[in-house]
């Protein structure tokens, strides 16, 4: 149980994010509005206008500029936040790589929204899934409470000396971004104690001397210059090393926050739900996990050994943890809210199969592409998935490994 008194506020997911950023003592926010992230930026600009925060708020002319500004502000040692989604995130694509390559610990909230065309403002994960290789830590949240909690954790994870990687926190468009929830918020001073000041490590500078790793006129360094076949590869290898350190950092920060707030999300990497003795497991990310948990409870009452694995951290990918969580089930249904056209399944499906390739006994693994462009995923459809898993477990046969669910045939 939490020892600290918390306040319950009625907040949408976007508002919960803005509130967390307000409390986290952020130096610079540079953002460009895009539905359904807009409320994050609007609420935060109100805090700035009302003098409730001491943040430099930069209105930029595009998302490309928003992230360029965030990266360069971060390079000076500032704590930086930005937010985007969908086409906005796609426009940031180039700078996502520059940010992670410069090891700038920027924190960004993404409201997961479909990509055009046809134009659509509703939820799916296509926008952030396509950026999974950009060298950012990716955390997908289930509800607005977790959005608030994860933004606070994200600053600690990003700025940790062993990671120094940018972090994106994903929340589902409208389902979370615009839906009011009761959100427990910590007192300002507890948040400030938890997030602390940004630590600047020392780095080897121009003359081989140790200097603070930030742009500083008194100790000038050069960041991100031309790096050809002689050193580029070494710098990429370092990014992978940071990703390998990240699971420990994510779990430590998650656990410390859990002790403070009384809320935990599995180990911070994955959240197994009634999986211990499960025969059938669904795997998903984001708000669908909430609906799926209800379906699992319902099935359990009927004696069906159903469970759920929610992936919270998608990058770094918790391969070992996933394998340990799923290797004793008979059949797994991976739910992908994005599609890799022509790849015979969605990205999560491929990576779950990859995680289980080295398991002693491999369960059957099937894929359901669902919810594109905000298509509803009601409990009845999730139940259908478990029904087909029951059939697979019983017959030991898979007829169709990849299916679309919720689309009119």
């Amino acid at each position, binding site marked *: 149980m939490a020892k600290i008194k918390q306040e319950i506020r009625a907040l949408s997911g976007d508002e919960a994010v803005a509130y967390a950023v307000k409390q986290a003592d952020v130096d610079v926010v540079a953002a460009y509005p895009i539905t359904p992230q807009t409320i994050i930026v609007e609420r935060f600009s109100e805090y700035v206008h009302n003098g409730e925060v001491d943040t430099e708020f930069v209105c930029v002319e595009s998302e490309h500029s928003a992230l360029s500004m965030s990266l360069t502000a971060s390079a000076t040692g500032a704590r930086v936040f930005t937010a985007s989604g969908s086409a906005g995130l796609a426009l940031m694509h180039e700078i996502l790589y520059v940010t992670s390559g*410069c090891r*700038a610990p920027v924190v960004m909230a993404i409201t997961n929204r479909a990509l055009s065309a046809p134009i659509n403002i509703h939820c799916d994960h296509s926008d952030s899934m396509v950026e999974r290789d950009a060298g950012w830590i990716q955390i997908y949240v289930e509800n607005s409470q977790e959005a608030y909690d994860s933004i606070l954790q994200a600053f600690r994870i990003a700025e940790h000396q062993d990671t120094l990687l940018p972090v994106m926190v994903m929340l589902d468009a409208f389902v979370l971004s615009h839906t009011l929830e009761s959100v427990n918020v910590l007192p300002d001073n507890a948040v400030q104690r938890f997030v602390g000041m940004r630590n600047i490590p020392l*780095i080897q500078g*121009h003359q081989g001397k140790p200097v603070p*790793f930030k742009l500083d006129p008194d100790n000038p360094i050069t*960041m991100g*210059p031309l790096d050809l076949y*002689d050193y580029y590869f070494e*710098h990429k290898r370092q990014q992978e090393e940071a990703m390998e350190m990240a699971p420990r950092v994510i779990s430590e920060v998650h656990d410390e926050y859990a002790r403070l707030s009384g809320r935990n999300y599995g180990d911070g990497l994955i959240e197994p739900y009634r999986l211990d003795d499960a025969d059938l497991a669904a795997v998903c990310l984001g708000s669908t996990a909430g609906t799926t948990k209800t379906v699992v409870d319902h099935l359990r009452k009927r004696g069906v050994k159903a469970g759920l694995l929610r992936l919270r951290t998608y990058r770094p990918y918790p391969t070992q943890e996933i394998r340990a969580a799923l290797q004793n089930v008979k059949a797994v249904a991976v739910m992908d809210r994005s599609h890799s056209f022509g790849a015979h399944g969605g990205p999560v499906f491929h990576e779950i199969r990859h995680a289980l390739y080295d398991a002693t006994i491999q369960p059957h693994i099937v894929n359901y592409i669902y919810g594109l462009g905000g298509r509803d995923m009601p409990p009845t459809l999730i139940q259908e998935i478990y029904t087909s898993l029951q059939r697979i477990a019983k017959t030991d046969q898979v007829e169709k490994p990849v299916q679309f669910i919720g689309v009119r045939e």
Partner: protein
Amino acid sequence: MTPKQKTWKEVPIGGVCWRPSTDYPTGDWRTLKPIRNPEKCNRCLLCFIFCPDAAITWDSEAEDIGFAYDYCKGCGICAHECPKDAIEMISE
């Protein structure tokens, strides 16, 4: 010449430079080489100011300019800017 190359564990992260850029002689990228005619040159130093590679040097004793050909990439800006037409770009 280039010192022994370091491993990924030895170089600073984030592409931070730990060596000066003068460790990279870029003069061999050049196809055209600037040659100055000292007769025409009045030492106005416009070329010194305009050279994007800081490859034009100033010798204060001799009160004259020089070219650091190890770094001059042959862009021709000096020749273009010279008010005296004192610099000619010749094929390497």
